[in-house]
């Protein structure tokens, strides 16, 4: 079964054992593909994971540190086939990741996102409220991950309404107008977690707007909200109380594996779709950890063909809760992300006066 076959199936329909069998074959093929077409990938994996036999489990597959994409541009396609270089938005001072895309991989990303989204949204395009300013996608030559994520999601909506202005302030009349027209039926709300909380929920909290027919999809991490001590549960509760909005799905994903997202189920846990998976590794030994134990998250995906990003060790901590959980409507692994690995400061002789000055 190829990735194209998997994309035609419901995203959470494979029991883990069967899924692993399929992924192993496909990821081994992807590894060979990248080894043949990216000299850098071949070089790194050959030294990091010297082995003679083909990997027999997903955990034995070679993987790269996700930070490598901030340092180097990898490509497994000839220059003339590169369709765009996707760049992570990266907060100020951080080096962005850069990802080479060709048409084939870009198409796979779109199809993958559709496969996952139709599962929660249904096959129809829904009226869509974007918790964003139109500015973020105005310049289409500059592809920030945030813009790309937004464009990707816009495919699942119609009658798009931007809820924020250029200064990220709420455009209340437009939101009211949108709700008056579409609020009686199913509609989609999409935005980045922090903006959804601070630029949307906060200003509308006491207005009594009815969002009970909405489905909110959000992503982008909890770091900023954790600083304000807002937990995922509080986030959900606050929305339900203020607006009646109950269908909320957070997702975990990254620019290095666009399209391959891990969407929250009704239980608040993330689930990998059929064409992706997670492995939790011990941060010291890199050995795979059993469910229940916290470790570093490795993400696997069949989508990256134009760059070797199919197996990446992230810098996030996570835990697998269950495999093929009983009673749920999703098969596979259920997991949570517990945030970034806390930074360690290295010591040493080099002073930082100069670094501060420049």
């Amino acid at each position, binding site marked *: 079964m190829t990735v194209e076959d998997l994309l035609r199936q419901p995203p959470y329909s494979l029991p883990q054992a069967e899924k692993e069998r399929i992924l192993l074959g496909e990821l081994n093929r992807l590894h060979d593909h990248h080894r043949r077409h990216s000299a*850098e990938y071949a*070089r*790194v994996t050959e*030294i*990091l994971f*010297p082995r003679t036999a083909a990997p027999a489990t997903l955990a034995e597959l070679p993987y*790269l*540190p996700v*930070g*490598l994409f901030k*340092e*180097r541009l990898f490509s497994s396609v000839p220059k003339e086939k590169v369709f765009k270089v996707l760049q992570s938005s990266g907060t100020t001072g951080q080096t962005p990741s850069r990802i080479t895309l060709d048409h084939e991989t870009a198409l796979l990303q779109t199809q993958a996102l559709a496969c996952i989204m139709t599962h929660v949204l249904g096959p129809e395009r829904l009226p869509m409220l974007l918790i964003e300013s139109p500015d973020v996608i105005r310049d289409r030559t500059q592809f920030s991950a945030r813009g790309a994520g937004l464009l990707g999601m816009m495919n699942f909506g119609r009658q798009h309404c931007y809820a924020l202005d250029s200064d990220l302030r709420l455009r209340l009349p437009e939101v009211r107008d949108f709700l008056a027209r579409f609020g009686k039926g199913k509609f989609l709300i999409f935005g980045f977690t922090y903006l959804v909380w601070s630029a949307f929920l906060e200003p509308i909290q006491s207005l009594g707007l009815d969002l009970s027919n909405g489905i909110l999809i959000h992503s982008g991490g909890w770091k900023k909200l954790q600083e304000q001590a807002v937990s995922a549960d509080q986030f959900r509760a606050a929305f339900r109380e203020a607006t009646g909005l109950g269908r909320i799905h957070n997702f975990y994903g990254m620019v290095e594996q666009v399209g391959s997202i891990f969407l929250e189920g009704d239980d608040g846990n993330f689930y990998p779709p059929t064409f992706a998976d997670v492995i939790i590794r011990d*941060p*010291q*030994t*890199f050995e795979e950890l059993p469910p229940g134990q916290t470790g*570093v998250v490795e993400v696997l995906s069949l989508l990256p063909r134009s760059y070797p990003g199919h197996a990446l*060790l992230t*810098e996030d*901590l996570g835990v697998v809760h269950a495999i093929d959980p009983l009673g749920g409507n999703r098969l596979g692994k259920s997991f949570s992300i517990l945030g970034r*690995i*806390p*930074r*360690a400061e*290295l*010591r*040493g*002789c*080099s*002073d*930082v*006066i*100069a*670094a*501060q*000055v*420049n």
Partner: protein
Amino acid sequence: MLVQSLFPPQGSVALEELKAQVAGGNVNPPFDAGVVEACIELSQRLLRDPIARRYPELLALGFWMRKTELHRLRQQFDLLQRDDRLLVPCGLVFHLPPRNVDTMFVYSWLLSALTGNCNVIRLSPQRSESTAALLRLFSETLAQASPSAKQGTWIVSYGHEEEPTQAFSSICDMRVIWGGDHTVSTIRQIPLSPHAREIVFADRFSLSAIDAASYLDLNESGRSVLARQFFDDSFWFDQMACSSPRLVVWCGKQNHAAGASADFFPRVNDYAVLRQEVQPAQCMHRFLSSSLAILDRPVTNYRRFPALSVLTLSDLEEFDRNHPGGEVFFECRVERLEEITPALRRRDQTLTWFGFGTDELRRLVTALNGRALDRIVPIGQALQFGRFWDGNDLLQSFCRQVFIGAPQPLLPEPS
């Protein structure tokens, strides 16, 4: 502008006021009894203090400046004095220690204060816990010390502002910059008074050389001791101290080198895991920097342990000295020690070694003829600070040498 005066503890002080205080500071005769007394007291406090005892580098500092060592230093200094040449203090020494090697400011201060100088030391506003502990003990000691000791030292703290650095640079007789190339270049833009001198400690690289056959001849406990000493050299400052080894050169036959390496690094790891918590972020940092090294360098083999990684190189040609720290060790093999000579560079500071004779080491220095290496010490002493550092004798560098000429016969008158 305001500058923090950490010692004497007087809070925020106007820069002009502080500059005036410092300019009027005490210059003592070399090895003034009050200063020596204060150093001994600080050493004892470092060795006793329950918080300081948590940090091996503070213990090492306390040990290094204990009474007998200070006595030895005094004898060495006396030996330098001659009938026709006297060492006298420079005057005011302005120290800019590195932020991240906490203990450096005390080493720098100690040699300067013992030789009689008045000192002003700049510390960064961001200070680690061990620096805070050290600073506390330092202040407590000096506060109770004799006037000669306490009236000649200022510890100041400010951020990246140039103004205080300018002010102290304009009045000091000697400026000491401990820091990377970048810091040195930045601070060098700030003028000194014309008569003043400067010592700079730029970015350095350090390596180890081990005779493989000698290593294999060691018994079990000998190997463990060496692993522990290597750990001390490398891990105290996360391999970021300039004298910590980042490259291990195995000398000898291929099978000996392979056997020695296969035994040595697991031992270092085992000891490291026992001694300190392995931080997940460091493991990830190491995995990333190893991957980059594989892309950029002639790496033929990679070994990952929880506390360190080892990357085997096919050769040292064009070996890039930039190194991310965090316990990533390069290794390579040569038949004989002298074969490393062509690969060594000015930036190479400390060679820590095991299994060579003094003659062999001296031959290496002679062959290098000043092109590289300032220190050659046994494994275990990489971080042991001393008066000889980066090619200087600090006991003399902090002094002016006054020449006292004897009467000479009259030259014949030109005809």
